[in-house]
């Protein structure tokens, strides 16, 4: 199973625990980052603000959730509510004239406080019961936002995000919005990877894998579950604020409904539980694949290759999308991250395939 790449020798303990211990992976990551930075020059405005930008924000949300669901193993089916708390907090704070940077922090803290409050109650139960408890959070938060005019701005209301600037750059500019989302996604990527390679992350994984064995080596199981809820909700809250200011520019309760929570869970599951690259791939799958499928079917219908009714034309993508999710979970339960890993291993040892496994 374990082998070294030719020519890669670690001589220090710190070197072995680098973010990317293999130089090839490091160059690859740098390349992707460079592409991300140059994207405003490379792709058109439409693609930038309606594909790349939401993908980055959804990835950030999936990364926040995968810390809780994948690394710490606590299921959360109300993550959209956490993001809603962050989004509404940030908008109200900026409306009161609080600088955007501090409003982001406030959004995170508010989401973390309410999130861990529910977490503390929910963590007395495990598995499916935890799912039910977090679902309750989704509905309670939804109901509160809709029915308290001070928060939602009235029934059926849309709250406009005020014009703010982040570190001097105006957040109404498309390019600035894109870079804001990119910065947040990159920050989260490094944060989650750092958590996974340090004592805090190991303790979370220990609690996930065997809580009694974790307790016997000194891990306060409840405290770490709660810390996972706190950290993940904090990041989710900030992601919600980033979503509101960088993408929607206005918030309504429907943007954070139960459907969205399920989408986040799907991203984390399809991507691969606890995987950083899985969050990117999962978000792309859940967010972009329906669009690709719709365009594909519409294109086929327009070109006359596929003669079907308008009605069916709009349903086929949904069916195909559902089938694809099931297929992925059947053939690779560890998600897209595992598929990526298999591919990487294939090319790493090619053509000496016997060295695999």
């Amino acid at each position, binding site marked *: 199973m374990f082998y070294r790449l030719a020519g890669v020798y670690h001589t220090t303990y710190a070197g072995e625990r680098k973010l990317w211990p293999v130089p090839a992976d490091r160059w690859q990551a740098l390349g992707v980052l460079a592409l991300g930075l140059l994207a405003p020059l490379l792709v058109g405005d439409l693609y930038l603000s309606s594909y790349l930008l939401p993908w980055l924000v959804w990835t950030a949300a999936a990364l926040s959730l995968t810390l809780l669901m994948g690394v710490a193993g606590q299921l959360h089916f109300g993550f959209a509510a956490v993001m809603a708390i962050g989004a509404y907090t940030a908008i109200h704070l900026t409306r009161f004239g609080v600088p955007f940077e501090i409003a982001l922090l406030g959004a995170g803290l508010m989401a973390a406080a309410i999130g861990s409050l529910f977490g503390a109650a929910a963590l007395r139960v495990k598995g499916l019961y935890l799912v039910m408890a977090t679902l309750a959070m989704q509905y309670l938060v939804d109901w509160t936002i809709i029915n308290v005019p001070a928060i939602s701005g009235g029934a059926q209301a849309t709250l406009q995000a005020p014009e703010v600037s982040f570190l001097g750059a105006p957040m109404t500019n498309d390019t600035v919005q894109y870079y804001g989302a990119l910065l947040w996604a990159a920050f989260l990527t490094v944060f989650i990877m750092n958590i996974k390679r340090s*004592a*805090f992350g190991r303790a979370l994984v220990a609690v*996930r*894998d065997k809580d009694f*064995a974790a*307790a*016997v080596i000194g891990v306060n199981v409840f405290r770490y579950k709660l810390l996972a809820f706190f950290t993940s909700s904090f990041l989710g809250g900030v992601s919600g604020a980033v979503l509101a200011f960088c993408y929607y520019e206005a918030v309504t309760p429907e943007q954070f409904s139960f459907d969205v929570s399920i989408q986040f869970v799907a991203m984390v599951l399809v991507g691969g539980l606890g995987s950083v690259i899985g969050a990117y791939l999962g978000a792309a799958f859940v967010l972009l694949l329906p669009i690709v499928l719709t365009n594909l079917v519409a294109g086929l219908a327009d070109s006359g290759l596929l003669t079907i009714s308008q009605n069916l034309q709009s349903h086929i993508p949904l069916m195909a999308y559902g089938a694809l999710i099931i297929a992925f979970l059947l053939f690779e339960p560890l998600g897209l991250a595992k598929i990526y890993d298999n591919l990487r291993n294939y090319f790493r040892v090619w053509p000496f395939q016997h060295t695999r496994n």
Partner: protein
Amino acid sequence: MAEAGTDRAARGEAVLACDNVSRSFGGLQALKNVSIEIGPGEIYGLVGPNGSGKTTLVNAVTGFYPPNSGTIRFEDRQIAGVKPHKVASLGIARTFQNVALFKGMSALDNILMGRHVHMKPRALASLFYWVWAEKDEVANRRQVEEIVDLLQLESVRHEPVEMIPLGMQKRVELARALAAEPRLLILDEPMAGMNQEEKEYMVRFILDAREALNLSILLIEHHLDVVTAICQRVAVLNNGEKIAEDAAKNAMSHPEVVAAYIGKVATPNSADAAHVG
């Protein structure tokens, strides 16, 4: 030997002293007034048939099933009813009957996890890994490598634990317990399911570890050859009661112990029963 232990305890030197510990689950009395004392540096054996309460006693000590009555003293502290993670930070480590490793981690990470009470795990420290956590990680890794060296785990350190053979997994679990630098080590059947060679290795590692780390050890084991070979004293439990406590060899031939293990022999003279065993 038994008298020597009691003397040490009387002078307050016992590392672990359980006094009249009782624990019941519903109507089942799993432990009935069990008292044991483990002296410093001692390897104390705990044997008895299945269901006799050995693991329950260990669970009472480590805080999973606090005793209904009786006291447990570790060094100078009362630990009856203290939560498991607190017990661990006081200096008691244990292994489990069925290997309880963290499946999602490598052997190395499992052993590093044993250093938990000596590390400062914080989310913020992880965020600023390079200036905050890295030093801690490297320093603890150095400690872990000492244990890896002691238990000869070099070849499997980077393997995922579920991929390595059972004998090695048990060794990794021992390493994880030792990494916490405990003063009392509780081993719950460390040799279950092992062949003769693996058993001999394990015994050697346990003796080495005791010497290197200055440990007292409570050993639960069904392999009586191992128990008689390395334990100074042995307590025998049956149906939740301590039926004998003596130097290892003597305890094994105690008539009640023989009766508990292989049933009562219908002879009027109990000395004959001992002879059968």
